[in-house]
């Protein structure tokens, strides 16, 4: 069939989608993905909310029994829960702050015309492409107090120690591993942002007599802010979900020193079979993530308003 002049291909598709006098394009493109999203995201979320309101110990009850807000009350009055929130926040703040500082430095460096730039970019990618569980095992072997390669070298300068043996150093080590793995991610995203800023802007600032610090403060940072917000959002949400590193390196120990929220939720749900309480704990991680996302999105919108 010849297409009438001026009629677009999309229009033809639309014409073909008309069945029984109804245009099916909207259902196809909108409702089906929404239904899939509902099934794989919303249904499990609602079920988790329901579970958090039940008492369900796997080996005691075949099915969950409604218990109201018992799990939530227990959680909010538990010292261990608040300790895990504290661990979570220290981990997230520590790792994201260091990753951002180092990553920005690396991005600024890689944005310049330096020798072997492509080589360095490839090298920096290496930790990022490792699955977190593999990276954690790698560090577990390297951190062994007696036979680990790190202590082998530190022994020469008398700085060898059991890094995972005390609470503060174990938490610092977890942060270090996260920094090692995700700083390249931060650097690459920020580098992409930097490369989108026109060189003419920097040249104009230079012509106006701005020094490197002023250019960074008044040109680079403001123009990079949308990218920075995205990078921080992604990293904070990802850091909130930390699990494999803790599972492999410390199992939440020594004691409960590195027992972040996710790990506590796992412990309660799967090691102690308390599915309801575990669900309540995991929802806290989700609530934190959503709250942070809302703050970031609101900030971006406000900035768009300023623009």
């Amino acid at each position, binding site marked *: 069939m010849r297409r009438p002049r001026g009629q677009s291909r999309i229009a033809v598709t639309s014409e073909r989608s008309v069945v029984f006098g109804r245009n099916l394009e909207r259902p196809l493109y909108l409702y089906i993905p929404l239904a899939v999203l509902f099934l794989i995201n919303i249904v499990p979320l609602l079920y988790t909310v329901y579970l958090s309101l039940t008492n369900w110990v796997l080996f005691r009850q075949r099915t969950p029994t409604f218990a109201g807000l018992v799990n939530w009350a227990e959680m909010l009055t538990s010292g261990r829960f608040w300790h895990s929130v504290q661990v979570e926040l220290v981990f997230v703040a520590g790792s994201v702050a260091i990753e951002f500082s180092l990553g920005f430095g690396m991005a600024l460096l890689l944005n310049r015309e330096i020798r072997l730039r492509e080589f360095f970019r490839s090298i920096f990618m290496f930790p990022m492409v490792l699955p977190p569980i593999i990276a954690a095992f790698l560090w577990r072997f390297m951190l062994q107090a007696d036979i680990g390669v790190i202590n082998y070298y530190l022994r020469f300068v008398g700085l060898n120690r*059991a890094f995972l043996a005390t609470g503060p150093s174990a938490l610092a080590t977890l942060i270090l591993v996260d920094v090692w793995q995700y700083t390249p991610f931060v650097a690459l995203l920020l580098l992409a942002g930097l490369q989108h800023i026109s060189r003419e802007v920097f040249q104009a600032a230079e012509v106006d007599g701005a020094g490197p610090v002023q250019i960074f403060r008044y040109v680079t940072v403001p123009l990079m802010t949308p990218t920075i917000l995205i990078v921080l959002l992604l990293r904070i949400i990802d850091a909130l979900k930390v699990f494999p590193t803790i599972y492999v390196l410390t199992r939440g120990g020594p004691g409960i020193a590195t027992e972040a929220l996710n790990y506590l939720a796992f412990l309660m749900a799967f090691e102690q079979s308390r599915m309801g309480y575990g669900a309540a704990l995991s929802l806290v991680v989700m609530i934190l993530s959503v709250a942070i996302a809302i703050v970031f999105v609101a900030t971006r919108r406000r900035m768009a308003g300023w623009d």
Partner: protein
Amino acid sequence: MSEHRSAPRSEQNPREVSRREALKLIGSTVAVAAAGGLTGYTPARAATAPAKPEAIFDFIAEAAKPYRGAQVTYMAVNSAQSQDVAPYLGEFEKLTGIKVRAEYGGESETLTKMDLELSSGAGAYDVMHVLSQSFARYLRGGWLAPLNPYVENPKLTDKKLWMYDDFYASTIKQLSSGGTLYAAPFFIATQIMYYRKDVFAKNGITKMPDTFDDFWKVCEAIDGKPLKALATRGSRGPTMNVWNWTAWLYAFGGEYFKSYDPKSPNYLRPMLDDPKSIQSADFYARAMQKFCPEGAVNWGWQESSRAFKQGQVAIIQEGSPFGGQFMDPKQSQVADEKLLGCFLIPKGPNGRHSPSASHGWAIPKDSKKKEAAWLFITWATAPARQYRSTIEQPNPMIPRDSVWKREDYKKKYGWGNYIETVNAGLQNAGEWDHYLPEMLPEYNDMGNEVSRLLQEVIGGQKKADQAMKEANEAVAAVIKQAGYYKS
């Protein structure tokens, strides 16, 4: 916990009932098996070995004919003991025409997965590796199929050839409830102390430490000359530090609970804050801090056994199966009879308390191929096959009396005083009916709570009295939540 049997009990001394009679008291969980002579390291009954032990394979081949083409899937914790069948799976498939799919994983991950699989009722697995520590939980969940109907079915089991009475009574007991068998044993264990003869000799130690006081003195005498004195488990988890420490707890006169008698007002009231319990935690932690290599606070059995095999420590408290690995030159740098010796876990003021554990193959209640699964289990636990794997692999802890009596078994594992020490450890464990908290479905929860606090004592973050007080409260909360307390 509704089927507790009554038992006499002294209110003045709640410990009197605590372990010896507790197996009877916790009747719904692990009751005394039907077989007689259930103390420790003895077979259920004197079993007569068949003239041709391999005849069981002909029986299994015949019995499997209706199930040819079926596929049996099993899940197991990765260990030398559960791996003992893996090299021979092809032989089973050829013998029976039943396909076998094996799935092994790390202990913690697999136990978690087992709980989820069993509770889901999906029936995706036909055979599961059951540890005595998990057994009560599985029973409470109603997740395992009773095996007696298969044992008693002459079309599926030739009891004489399978030699049911040949299994050690304690393993049958630990894997049974109310006279019903739920898992066929393939492993029995206790813990002993392994030591380096050369280090002891160099430091003039000629007498093995019999008490924990002696033990401390020996550790002091050998520490750093040239090896660190001790390796034991320090990391968190119900099978980690708390498992090793429990022998010390009992030896010092400590206990988990004041009473296991449901009629007592002290029923399952924890007593980890008792001075003796605190003393044992303090002693264990100080021993680890002073005599173990740096970082041992995070060591599980993997790290501590590795350190011993690499010749870094002089004494290790570990499971009896490790004797096979320590003397295996492929795995161990100290695999030499001149270097290795054993002694029992020392005595404390309250005597000696060696632990015991059993593992077995079970059929999930929801398996759809139970008969084929049972044939796999009888093949896996057949005396001739178990004997073969113990000879061909470093796997000494087969729970069969007839295997241990064979000359080539004695020849392979009879280095130094290994067999004698393991026997004495199992006998000691049998005398005490140890590790009763394991027989509560909530053992995992309790073990997790106690182990994290014990780790804080070992790591120096908390004093023993404070940590044990918290452990007491945590265990009380677990027991209360489980509904054991009436008030």
